[in-house]
């Protein structure tokens, strides 16, 4: 969900800084990320297609951050618990919140999250299954699960 995921998108009329101001590598990297240059996967055009299940539009649906934003830097253990980075049998969390559509497919059909292997996917899913009310992503998970596949 966009509001949970406020990695400020540039307005479409945004101008890059002209002039000779020095730009750090980090800023360049984040600008490349904003423009999605360097990320060939995924799409930038989502066409509204009523009445059909559409994974393509998942980016504009709800999403589940793994773990909570207050737990930045933590890893996810295979049983789904949130642990210190580098813990045995634990994995670095996904870079971005998982889309509701991907979570639904993974839970219902066993598909893997793009860019993650089976162990990582299992750990993330175990984390999601443990979400309780009040946690970020919980209502998204609930809305996915209450829909019949």
């Amino acid at each position, binding site marked *: *969900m966009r509001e949970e995921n406020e990695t400020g998108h540039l307005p479409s009329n945004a101008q890059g800084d002209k002039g000779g101001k020095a730009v750090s590598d980090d800023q360049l990297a984040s600008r490349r990320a904003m423009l999605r240059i360097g990320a060939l996967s995924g799409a930038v055009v989502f066409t*509204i297609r*009523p009445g059909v299940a559409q994974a393509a539009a998942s980016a*504009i649906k709800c999403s589940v951050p793994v773990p909570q934003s207050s737990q930045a830097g933590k890893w996810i253990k295979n049983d789904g618990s949130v642990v210190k980075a580098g813990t045995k049998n634990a994995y670095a969390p996904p870079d971005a919140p998982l889309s509701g559509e991907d979570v639904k497919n993974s839970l219902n059909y066993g598909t893997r999250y793009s860019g993650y292997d089976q162990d990582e996917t299992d750990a993330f899913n175990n984390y999601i299954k443990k979400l309780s*009310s*009040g946690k970020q992503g*919980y*209502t998204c998970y*609930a809305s996915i699960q*209450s829909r019949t596949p």
Partner: protein
Amino acid sequence: MYRFDVRIGHAGFRVGSPWRHPIDTLRRLYAGYPPPEGGGATLTARIAPPRPLRRWLRPQAAIAGDHCLPDVVPMALRHALLALEMAMNMQVALGERRHLLIHAAAVERGGKALILPGESGSGKSTLAALLGEAGWRVLADEFVLIDLATLRVRPFPRPISLKNDAIVEMQARVADESRFGPLLTGTPKGALRHLRPKADAIARMDESAVPALILFPAFGFPSDSAGVSRSELFARLTEGSTNYIALGQRGFETMLRIVDTTPAARFAYPDSAAGLAIVDQFCSEIGL
């Protein structure tokens, strides 16, 4: 052909069946509904045996009418009521061009509409039925119709289709047995029973309401709620609309105005009492 004509909101239906029994059942379910405006229906919904033999031998009812989808699987004749209801749904889902359709239930209080979108299983029908017995007026179960000119919700108060556990729950709350249709077991959606809205909802089917709040329910989870972004709201409402694309620019503009002006949230709830409590809380926050 046995026949029953009825008006639901703006739509005048002519419903037909080669078997007598389904029409009798339908007529009982729609007791108190008016006939089509000016005596003339404009939409035909009917059921028919998929092959001539199927009228008598292991009889089956296929869904047909003015607008229909190819390859809809026929149903056993004992589920003919469901087939007729689906045939009527099909006419609206595929033929409606004067209102934007939203796949949702809706109820009204004080001239303001609460819209409950959701796929089957989300609990929207049950919530609408519960609210309909708790001081709200039922506007719609399956299709919420947004008038393209006024942006108001045009009532389309069909009987609510209750599924499985919701049937027992509503039977305990509704004293008037005549408001229920027959119990249909073993349908593709499980056990199913229709509940006619209160007489008031039928009598006031021409009284529209302003969309005031959109809540996405999720049944069967501990209580919680969260906001829904505008982009997600737009995507979800269009995804569930069977006529958004066909309305072209008018559909886009109408959907955008709904998304711009109507607050929206999602919530999870474990049981009816909790669901009603959350809805109440939301409504009091926005003065509904």
